[in-house]
């Protein structure tokens, strides 16, 4: 664990962002860019995979963004994969390396990866859902010997919409990672599977009670992925999701992320299906 100074606890106001420089910006697709944010010594993020930060562009606003880099690789910088979707994210996309952004956090409960040690892990991200799950995937890959099989089922709309393509290739080359890709709309060069993410499940066999599944994607995807996972016999407590809400504070006050009695910013955004299956407002 990094012994540096954790950012937010130091600030006189919980709403005050720490201003940090953008080290690098990489265009992933037409809609998504990855921002590498510098952490000048002794500032540290000390996040857990699955946590998020509140990102500010002063004068425009703030939005919750999940952390894409794993703690194992976030010592002097961290990464955010941001889709252009609203005022704040459009403003972010207009920035250049060297510009500064405000950051608060990390917030929320991440995935309890210690509990996943020794188990097979099935990742099922859809679209932008790879952004938060990449943090867990790399954390697990950097501690590879402590886990069983690593299976990644990734679905995107089109081949050009696939995120982190360099890493997808890396994972495809590794013998200790089972990567399965699918797209809804193939292009001429696409040789892989065509169809929604659930079509990949028939390709794999798992030992249900020794498998932890982690999924993240658009709201509509969960219902179908959950059906597959439950159908494979995974216990509800072994299925983990990351839920999206529009947090305004990140600290359980503003009310925007509340689902039934739970606050996604405090109780999540990582939840096991067992924890939320009875909540009507969760999915």
């Amino acid at each position, binding site marked *: 664990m990094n012994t540096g100074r954790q950012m937010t606890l130091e*600030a*006189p*106001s*919980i*709403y*005050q*962002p720490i*201003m940090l420089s953008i080290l690098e910006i990489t265009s992933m697709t037409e809609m998504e860019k990855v921002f590498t944010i510098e952490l000048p010594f002794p500032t540290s993020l000390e996040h857990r995979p699955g946590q998020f930060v509140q990102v*500010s562009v*002063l*004068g*425009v*606003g*703030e*939005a919750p963004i999940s952390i894409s880099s794993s703690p194992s690789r976030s010592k002097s910088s961290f990464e955010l994969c941001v*889709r252009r*979707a*609203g005022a704040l*994210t459009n403003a972010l996309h207009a920035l250049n390396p060297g510009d*500064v952004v*405000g950051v608060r956090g990390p917030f929320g409960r991440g995935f309890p990866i210690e509990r996943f040690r020794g188990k097979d892990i099935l990742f099922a991200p859809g679209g932008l859902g790879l952004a938060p799950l990449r943090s867990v995937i790399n954390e697990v890959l950097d501690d590879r010997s402590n886990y069983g099989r690593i299976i990644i089922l990734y679905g995107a709309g089109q081949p050009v919409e696939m995120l982190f393509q360099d890493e997808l290739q890396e994972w495809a080359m590794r013998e200790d990672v089972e990567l399965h890709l699918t797209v809804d709309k193939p292009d001429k060069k696409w040789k892989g599977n065509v169809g929604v993410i659930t079509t990949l499940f028939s390709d794999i066999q798992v030992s249900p009670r020794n498998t932890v599944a982690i999924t993240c994607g*658009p*709201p509509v995807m969960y219902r179908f992925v959950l059906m597959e996972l439950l159908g494979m016999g995974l216990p509800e407590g072994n299925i983990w999701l990351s839920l*999206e*809400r*529009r947090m*305004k*504070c990140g*600290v*359980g*006050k*503003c*009310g*925007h992320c*509340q*689902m*039934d*009695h739970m606050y996604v910013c*405090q109780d999540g955004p990582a939840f096991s299906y067992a924890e939320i299956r009875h909540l*009507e*407002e969760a999915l």
Partner: protein
Amino acid sequence: MIAKILPKHALQNWIETLREHYRIIGPKLAQSQFIFGDIHSADELDLSYPTTILPPKKVLLPQREDLFHFDATGDTHIVEPTFDDEPTVILGIHACDMHSITLLDRVFERGTADQHYQTRRENTTLVSLECIKSCSEYSFCKSMGTLSIPEDFDLHITDLGDEYLLEIGSNKGVSLLWNFNEVREATDADFERLNKVMSEKWSHFTYRVDFDITELPALLSLSYDSKVWEELGDRCLACGACNIVCPTCYCFDVRDEVDFSLCSGGRFRVWDSCQLDRFAVVAGGHDFRDARAARQRHRFFRKGKYLTEKYGVVGCVGCGRCAQACLVHISPVDIFNELHRRRVPSAATQEEILA
């Protein structure tokens, strides 16, 4: 109990003395209704007020509150948080509103403490007022258990007729009477008068909820799928007035603004409403509570169950402001009673079941 007696004719001088050190907020007439507003002289203050349009929440959690100013003109971006530490006295707070402040204190203290709320709260002195008659046809404090004031007061006023009895609840309360010599110690005779007022007041209030309010969280749990919510959703105009006037609603939105230079400005929070369209919308456009029925249910579950279970105090203090503000007459009393009626079969239906 430490208590003082303030003759009513000395109220003006007391307020004059307090004004040297504090901003004074109290109930006063604004056109045809009462508000909590700045008090400059005792003439403005009306301690026999019925109820106010907005609760004293508007002082502790202002409708718009600056969080920080920023200046991005130079190479380094300066972010300067803003705190309001002006010494303030809120005078004449009814018991229901005192209970709501107890809740707000817990909300902004627990988990991650909110320094903006806490700074203002630490610099605010609460002077509560004993409710001796019902203040509004809409109120139902007696049913909610909020007719007796909580212990969080700094000074508590009871109207004894020609004099006020002032109970001191804290050092902040002591400070309000510092160097003010027009009060005297309360005597046994004064306490007898206090006891008389206290024992007579209860009959002026009625129970309006048909069941023991401690059953409310359980009743709501059983009523999650009730048709009542659909019916409410059909009536509700989603205007958000209920949230705005509610003393225990504290949800907020956070926004930025820039000045003409486009380089400096600030971030502030404003009251928000879970009844408004788009309160639970995410970036992709999905609305997690798009039906008015679901939003009404969420509101009543917060008031009757979630806040109670999380913070250990009632989430609805029975002030009745939402019922008064609602254009389509949605009233918590009616909803609670209707939920109870539908859960508890009447004698006739019980006979049917047994037959």
